[in-house]
């Protein structure tokens, strides 16, 4: 949590990259993380693969299916993260669905997260109300930040509630959609939405995600938010090129610097 907070205080125009643990290979986690760090990702979101990822489009769905076939599980992931704890410096967030966490035991899960140096969690199907009632204390006591999503349909008063309960950043979903790379720039509707959120002067910085696929998208949303999150576009790259170190470094540099 603190690592993330410091990052947001010190830097603007952050680039965060999502990848699914265990994709394309079971032991891709470390090489992918190292390459993302070297390429200039400011922090990473590690996807915990799930059989039924409701909020994800075909690209991330497919990467999850492959990762599960490769034998990825929370147990395996935590073992991998334990080993690479010292070699990765940028903050790491885990993203995944509630059922595997529930099965693992929420308390045991949070303790493992703390142990391996995870800064925050994005669990889309753990709603705000349940988090506050049952888990807020557990998360904050262990220094794990819970990251809430907002969408163009989220009313102002709800955004205010989520803002208040946030301890690192808010995940601003770019449009009403599941994850997936999209072409083209921002629509006037999206700009309205970003400006509406900006005008609320939240204490919590926002990162824009869903549909961000290239340098131009990234720069464009940085005008309205603290940074951008790239997921499906990177998974597509892994699908095509594999987890080759130099290719990933090149991809991230291009995303960040435009060349």
């Amino acid at each position: 949590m603190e690592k993330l907070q410091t990052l947001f205080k010190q830097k603007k125009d952050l680039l965060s990259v999502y990848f699914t643990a265990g994709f394309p290979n079971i032991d891709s986690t470390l090489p992918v993380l190292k390459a993302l760090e070297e390429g200039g990702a400011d922090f990473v979101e590690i996807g915990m693969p799930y059989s039924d990822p409701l909020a994800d489009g075909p690209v991330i769905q497919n990467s999850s299916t492959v990762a599960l076939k490769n034998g990825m599980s929370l147990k395996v992931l935590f073992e991998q993260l334990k080993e690479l704890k010292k070699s990765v410096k940028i903050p790491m967030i885990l993203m995944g669905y509630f059922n595997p966490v529930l099965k693992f035991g929420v308390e045991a899960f949070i303790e493992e997260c703390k142990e391996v140096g995870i800064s925050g969690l994005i669990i889309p199907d753990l709603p705000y109300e349940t988090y506050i009632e049952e888990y807020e204390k557990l998360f904050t006591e262990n220094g794990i930040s819970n990251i809430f999503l907002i969408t163009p349909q989220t009313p102002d008063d709800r955004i205010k509630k989520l803002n208040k309960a946030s301890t690192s950043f808010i995940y601003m979903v770019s449009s009403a959609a599941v994850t997936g790379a999209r072409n083209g720039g921002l629509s006037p509707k999206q700009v309205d939405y970003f400006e509406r959120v900006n005008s609320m002067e939240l204490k919590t910085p926002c990162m824009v995600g869903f549909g961000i696929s290239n340098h131009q998208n990234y720069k464009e949303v940085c005008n309205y938010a603290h940074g951008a999150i790239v997921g499906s576009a990177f998974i597509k790259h892994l699908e095509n090129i594999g987890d080759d170190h130099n290719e990933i470094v090149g991809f991230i540099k291009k995303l960040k610097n435009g060349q």
Partner: protein
Amino acid sequence: MSESFQPDEKGFYGPYGGAYIPEMLIPNIENLRENYIRIMNSESFRKNFKTLLEDYAGRPSPLYYATRLSEQYGCNIWLKREDLNHTGSHKVNNTIGQILLAHEMGKKRIIAETGAGQHGVATATVCALMGLECIVYMGETDIERQAPNVARMKMLGAEVRSAVSGSRTLKDATNEALRDWIANPLDTFYLIGSVVGPHPYPDLVAKMQSVISGEIQWQLRNKTDKSDPDYVVACVGGGSNAAGSFYHFMDNPDVKLIGAEAAGEGLSSGKTAASIALGETGVIHGSMTNLMQTNDGQITEPYSISAGLDYPGIGPLHAWLNHTGRAKYLSVTDQEALDAALLLTRKEGIIPALESAHALAALNQLDLKSGENVVVTISGRGDKDMKTYMDRLQLV
């Protein structure tokens, strides 16, 4: 009786239910939750619902005394004939109710998931009736094994979209429908087909289907002087026909409630859909309930010969009825269901849906006594399953 079988205001039945949904769906679900009770209690909804159920769907469905089947089992067997409804199953009770709700809420685009295709057909039917756009998600496997229903949906003007993830059955179709709703939050109404999903769906669908047990009560009273039977038996996929059959009897512990779930090729075969027998508590499609999962919390791909029961979870009301012991859930294999379907056909001249055949097969596991009144819900008719019957019963 101490337990309540109605959900609390957050949609929990004991520990089960709730709304475990991504933020993207919260506004849609809130909107529905804030409106469904008010609309369902309104004079105009009640009038329209009643009229359509009677004049369009053909309700009340008969409660038929099955003489030859009763002789076979040595008790009084009453069949609640949901198979005689327009479109051929109980699903139409719910789709009529929800389409009125959608209309009242000003929604123009209807999406649905379907397994056997019965809910898809019932949805396409009411969309045609109301002149609304209809998109039905259906697993690729089910599109193949329930071809007649796919054709019916298309003739009714619906677009059938194939779900190609997972085992390509009902679970995957439901995922796709939820993703569609995420992408179309404003104009779209998700017309869910069973007592599953996030609150308020389980309660909403149970209320729509409760017409079944309401009728059983007065029909039985007219025929036997007793309004409450000794047993009510129904098959359980997500659990809507069972919820509707149990509804008015849940608070009377003298009525034994029996759900029949699909064991597929057997509980230990690895090819099964017995979510109560093999499931553990977890979250599926936005609801805390019993579901089949691996040790890592991944949802298990289910299997059943019957597409309508081929689902790894169960509605949260049933998880609670099972938890409290109020209802009992029995597992029925593919073969037992096939045998029961043939028995009903030859004894009574009624070809049941494969789903309903599971309820009939459960009779073999009950200790039925002479004079007892046993109501079995025939949730649908077997037309859609003729290919499977011909193949598996070697009738050619």
